[in-house]
C-alpha cells in the first residue's frame, strides 16, 4: 500500500473544505445554543481559506510542509477558538511529517497524536472538559492502536471514526468546562459540543481519502 502524498493531502484538504462548508448551518446552530453562534462563519472562513490554499498546484512535494502551511492559512482566516486549535493541529501534524514526500500509516498515527497534543497545549483543556479534544484524543488513540495492531490505513480510519463519534456522544451529557460554553454552565448538559461535531465532520472528510481518491 502506497502512502499519502501531496496530491492526496491536497484532495483531503479540499474534502475538508467542502465538508465544513456543507455543515456551516448545523455548526452555527450548535454554537448558538452554548456559545456565540459564530462557528458556521468560522467554518465558512476555514473552508474558503483551504479552498484558496489548495487551488494552486502544491509548490512542494513535502507533505509535512504542505500541511503546516495549510494550518497557517487557516489561522490567518479564522482565528476563533476552534479555528486556532485546528490551525495548530495542522501545523503540529505537518511538523511531524516535515521532509516526507509520502506518509504511511505509522506516520499518520504520529501526526494525529501530534495534532491531539498540539490542541491540548494550545487550548490548555483536558479530555472530559467537553471540547474537540474529546473527539481528537480518542480518535488519535484508536488510530494508533489499530496501526499498532497491524490494521491498514482504511481499517484504522474506520476505528478512528468510531472513536471520534463515541467521544462526541460520551461528553454530550456533561457540562462544558472551558471556553464560552463554560459561562453557560448547566444549560450545556445534554447539548452536543459544536467543536466535537466539527471534529467528527473533519475526520470523516479526511478519512474519506482512502475510498474516494
Amino acid at each position: 500500500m502506497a502512502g499519502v502524498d501531496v496530491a492526496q493531502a491536497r484532495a483531503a484538504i479540499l474534502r475538508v473544505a467542502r465538508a465544513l462548508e456543507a455543515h456551516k448551518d448545523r455548526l452555527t446552530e450548535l454554537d448558538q445554543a452554548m456559545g456565540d453562534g459564530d462557528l458556521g462563519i468560522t467554518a465558512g472562513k476555514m473552508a474558503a481559506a483551504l479552498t484558496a490554499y489548495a487551488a494552486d498546484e502544491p509548490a512542494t512535494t513535502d507533505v509535512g510542509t504542505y500541511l503546516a502551511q495549510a494550518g497557517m492559512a487557516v489561522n490567518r482566516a479564522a482565528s476563533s477558538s476552534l479555528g486556532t486549535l485546528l490551525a495548530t493541529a495542522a501545523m503540529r501534524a505537518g511538523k511531524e511529517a516535515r521532509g516526507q514526500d509520502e506518509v504511511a500509516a505509522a506516520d499518520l498515527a504520529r501526526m494525529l497524536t501530534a495534532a491531539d497534543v498540539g490542541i491540548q497545549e494550545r487550548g490548555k483543556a483536558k479530555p472530559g472538559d467537553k471540547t474537540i479534544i474529546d473527539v481528537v484524543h480518542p480518535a488519535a488513540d484508536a488510530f494508533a492502536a489499530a496501526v499498532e495492531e497491524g490494521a491498514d490505513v482504511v481499517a484504522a480510519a474506520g476505528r478512528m471514526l468510531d472513536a471520534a463519534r463515541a467521544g462526541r456522544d460520551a461528553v454530550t451529557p456533561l457540562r462544558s468546562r472551558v471556553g464560552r460554553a463554560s459561562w453557560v454552565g448547566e444549560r450545556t448538559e445534554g447539548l452536543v459540543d459544536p467543536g466535537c461535531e466539527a471534529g467528527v465532520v473533519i475526520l470523516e472528510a479526511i478519512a474519506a481519502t482512502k475510498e474516494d481518491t
Partner: protein
Amino acid sequence: MKKILNDPNAYVTEMLDGLLKAHPDQLAFAEDVHAIVRADAPVQGKVALATGGGSGHLPVFLGYVGKGMLDGCAVGDVFQSPSAEQMLEVTRRIHGGKGVLYIYGNYGGDVMNFDMATEMADLEDIRVETVLVRDDVASAPPAEADRRRGVAGMVYAFKLAGAKADAGGDLDEVAAIARKTLEHTRTIGVALSPCTVPQAGKPTFTIGEDEMEIGMGIHGEPGMKREKLQTADEITERMMDALLDDLAPSEGDTVSIMLNSLGATPHEELYIMFRKAHEILGARGVKVHRPYVGRFATSMEMAGASITLLRLDDELKALLDAPAHSPFFVQP
C-alpha cells in the same frame, strides 16, 4: 436595530480606513493585516503595550492606542479574535527594545492567538509578558476567577500600565502594575437589547420587551438570569452589590468608577445610574476619585451598561491621574 452599512464583509476594513483618515497624526496602519500602531511607533526605550481582540467594541480596543496608553492593537473581525500573525506584526512594529506587554480579555480565541504570537516573538528575541483581563464578576464565582471574561475594566489596565511605561518602568514593573490594577478591578454589566453582527445579519440574542439580563457579557454571553426590567436604582443597587461583595473595599477606601454604556444607552441614563452608585459608595464610606461616565467598551448598538470599580492606592491613583492622549481618550 438598523445599521448604516455597505458590504458586511468590508465592515472592519472600511471602519479602519475611516479611522486612519480621521486620525492620521495619531495612528499608523499595517493595512494588509489590520494592525494599528501609534504613528510614532516604535517608541525607543519604552516598554510597548499591545492589545487585540474582535471589532465592534469601540473605543475598545484600538481607541486606546496613543500616548500614555497602548502602542498597538491587532484588529479582528467583529467579535472575532485577530490572528497570531496580526499580533506578531503589531509586536514587531511597536517593540522599542524594552519588551512588549500584552493586555487583553480572557477569551479563548484571543488567548490562543496571543500565546502563538508570544512563541513567534520569542523566536525573534522579543520578550513578551502577558496580563489577562478577567474583571467580569458575573462570569464565574470568586473561586474560579481565572475563568472570568475581560470587559470594560481593561481600560483601567491600559491606562495605568501605559502610565507606568511612560514613567520609564521596565517590562516586569509595567506588567506588575497591570496585574495589580486588575486585582483591584471588578466589572458587571446589564443588557437590555442585543446588537447585530453585520456578517451574521441578525441579533446576537433575543430578549423580551420587558426583560433585562444582569451580568451579560459584551458579546451577549449569558449573565446571572433573565428578569423583568427594573428601575435604574434597583438595577444599579444589584450591580453595585455584586461588585462590592467581590471587591470588598473598606470604609475610607477610594475607588475610581466607570459607568459605561454598551452602546445605545444614552449618557442621560448613565448619569442617573452614576447618581445611585455614588450614593451607595457614600453610604459605605467609600470615596470616589476621577469617575468616568460614557462609552468605553461597547457592543455596537447594544442597549445596556456596565459598572467598573477600581480600588485605588496612592501608586494607582498617581498613574490614573497621569495624562494620556489617544483618539478616544484624552486626559490632560
